[in-house]
């Protein structure tokens, strides 16, 4: 039993989740004096903080996206490291979400809480795998917190894409994927499946792919799409941000097959809404089985749920004798 329970020293404030004795925020939504950042996605990592503590990779991603002066000062940490700040012991472990994604366990006067950020449990060649950390409270995301969300093995989904490429060799295959994490994982998995032709990139992807390569992740040959090759991409794979799938940029490609790599593609109406021909159920978030497995692996007596569909996961947790509540972050405020 914890001597001081994290609920006594963790608050949710308009800026984000706040650790009182440590005087810092975790993934704050607004500029603050001191922030711990779990990973580089824009809804977690913002520019303009005073001091940012994050993994070397996450700091590099933030610098790549926001410029080198994204924070007044930075502190780089590595997986496995422990440090003390204002009496808080901070332990860092990989979260398996994207390159550099980290979980932070905060221990204070005998009580502990793990902020896992976004995470997944399956293998990803672009980042280190999730490591369970023991704690009194486990804070979990619930992006895909409904039992209908089961992500198939990624090999199957990559197989669908390669099969379509065989079937329609005269059409360009345009895949919508997040520029950070998803795109690079997709490319690595294509390579593992034996696809060694160049992969073409929308301009918004180029810098982050280069950064991944600098961290030693082998993406094979990648080229930006430009005016010279645009009309010659029949039978090639092109990766772009989801928002570019149906914009003018995409309409200049040759009769593309529109694919989209996302966990939401599991739901037909969602895929249809986005006018996707080839839905690929690929996600960097835990699916329902991974979420519930993680609660059981960690075995923390208390669960705080954030990010997405809390209701079903809270129900599951209560069925399985966990004390569970929604950690309502302002940016995800679902209902009053």
């Amino acid at each position, binding site marked *: 039993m914890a001597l001081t329970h994290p609920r006594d020293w963790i608050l949710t404030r308009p800026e984000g989740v706040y650790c009182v004795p440590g005087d810092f925020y975790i993934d704050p939504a607004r500029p603050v004096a001191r922030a711990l950042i779990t990973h580089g996605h824009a809804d977690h990592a913002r520019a303009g903080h005073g001091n940012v503590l994050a993994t070397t990779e996450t700091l590099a991603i933030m610098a790549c996206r926001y410029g080198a002066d994204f924070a007044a000062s930075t502190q780089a940490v590595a997986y496995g490291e422990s440090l003390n700040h204002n009496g808080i012991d901070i332990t860092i472990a990989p979260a398996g979400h994207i390159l550099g994604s980290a979980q932070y366990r905060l221990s204070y006067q005998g009580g502990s809480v793990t902020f896992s950020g976004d995470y997944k449990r399956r293998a990803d060649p672009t980042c280190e795998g999730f490591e369970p950390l023991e704690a009194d409270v486990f804070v979990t995301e619930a992006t895909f917190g*409904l039992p*209908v969300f089961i992500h198939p093995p990624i090999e199957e989904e990559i197989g669908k894409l390669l099969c379509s490429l065989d079937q329609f060799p005269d059409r360009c295959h345009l895949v919508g994927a997040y520029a950070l994490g998803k795109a690079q994982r997709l490319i690595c998995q294509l390579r593992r499946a034996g696809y060694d032709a160049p992969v073409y990139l929308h301009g918004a992807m180029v810098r982050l792919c280069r950064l991944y390569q600098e961290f030693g992740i082998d993406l094979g040959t990648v080229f930006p799409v430009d005016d010279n090759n645009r009309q010659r991409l029949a039978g090639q794979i092109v990766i772009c941000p989801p928002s570019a799938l149906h914009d003018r940029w995409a309409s200049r490609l040759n009769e593309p097959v529109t694919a989209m790599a996302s966990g939401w593609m599991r*739901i*037909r*109406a969602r895929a249809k809404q986005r006018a996707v*021909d080839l839905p690929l159920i690929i996600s960097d978030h835990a699916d329902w089985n991974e979420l519930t497995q993680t609660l059981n692996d960690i075995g923390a007596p208390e669960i705080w749920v954030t990010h997405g569909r809390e209701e*079903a996961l809270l*129900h599951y947790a209560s069925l399985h004798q966990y004390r569970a509540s929604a950690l309502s972050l302002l940016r995800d*405020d*679902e209902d009053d």
Partner: protein
Amino acid sequence: MRSFARLLDRLFYTYGNNAKARLLLDYLRATPDPDRGYAIAIIAGTLELPGFKRSLVRDLIASRVDPVLVDLSYDYVGELAETVAHLWPANQPAATLPSLAEIVGTLLTLPKSGVPDYVAARLDDMTSAERWAFLKLGSRGGLRVGVSARFLKQVLAQFGDRDVQEIETAWHGVAPPYVELFAWLERRGEAPASADLPFFHPVMLAQPLEAQGLERITPATYAAEWKYDGIRVQIVARTGGKAIYSRTGDDIGGSFPDLLAAVDFDAVLDGELLVAKDGRLGSFNDLQQRLNRKKPDRQLIERLPARIIVYDMLRDAHRDLRGLTFSERRGCLEAWMARIRPSGFALSSILDFKDFDALSRHRLASTDAEGSVEGVMLKRRDSPYLAGRPAGMWYKWKRDPRVVDAVLMYAQRGHGKRSSYYSDYTFGLWQGDALLPIGKAYFGFTDAELKQLDQWIRHNTLKSFGPVREVTKALVFEVAFDAVNRSARHKSGFALRFPRISRIRWDKPANEADRMANLEALLGSTAPR
């Protein structure tokens, strides 16, 4: 079963008609009888599996997955077949599945008590996408893969290199699994006999009346009628059966048993389907309450009985009238109506007009109607009944719209009994690439529609601001209003008087909604004129 599941899955994610036709043709060529015939029957909705019910599927999943999780999932997914397909406990899919014909055959012959175990065993062997397709066999709401009965017949025509009218004619002489139909299409057998069966006759459609060529509209050449705001139907009653077809050839008779009961004659009529409400014709909104109700209850039928305004006659017993002129057909129709007087049927009246101005006044007068009339129709007196939209023959001249198609931008939670629903809507029109909010409305829809809207809003939220949600700009409302005036107090510069949601256009892409210029054109106009 596996290839049928793949077909449905591909059809679902295929958007163009040509591509859909290609998929169907490939399937029909690669699949033997009787599988392909059952597939056609399932897609056309002509196969009934009485033991395979929605309630059975609900019971099966309830005994396997926690009910709260089922409800939350169903709320999100919005369709039972897909929800159950995803939630079904995963197994290793079987190496082979029984053929579609074997599955259908078993479901048709099993005693009722054996159906649940059989369905569960099949679900155990399948992947999620296969379960979805399989569960569609038990859904009464249609497949929703974007293939209408009429479209399927066009594909069959292409498959057998026949005219689509031949397929329509043959269709009613055959039944699932359509072995003799395929034999005929593949030139291996005779055409199925069907002379007295109630087949669909392709419909003649009108063009919108354009400004140019108005001088051709004279009382001598064109007859004028009201344009009713219902749905176009074809009533086919032959000695071998009767049917009520929509414009696209789907038989909707099941939704209108009151009407079918009144169909006791041998003729093919063309008309408008509406409902009566409180003794007069109701609006399209009233009619909507009866559309897509597979089995309407008696109360609903009594409250909103179906009405037909008849305006053309294609066949009188064995006489095909389609080659006659409009005036001749009209003469036949009037005499026939005077003789037969089917209950619930009324003759569309011919409007008197001596010149174009008089016609315009009729059109304006249609604005005063309670919403069952939306303009005038003009039909060339010498026009034969031709399939399609032949030029210069029939025109529709809709009344000026005091409606705009606007895009939903924000939704706010309502009050009182609506406090748990997002029921107050702010909508906007396009100006360039941006939407400008033009007004707010919180009524004009039914409670069932409110639930649907609420679901949609929760699944399409971009941002929340307290009780207000900003949503994906993807849903179009037809907004009706009494007048529009300039206003300095509104961001868009316009204020609507008495705006209300007149229709929810689930079908309309947001980029096809109206622009600010469309609203500006209605400035100062007040209804009714």
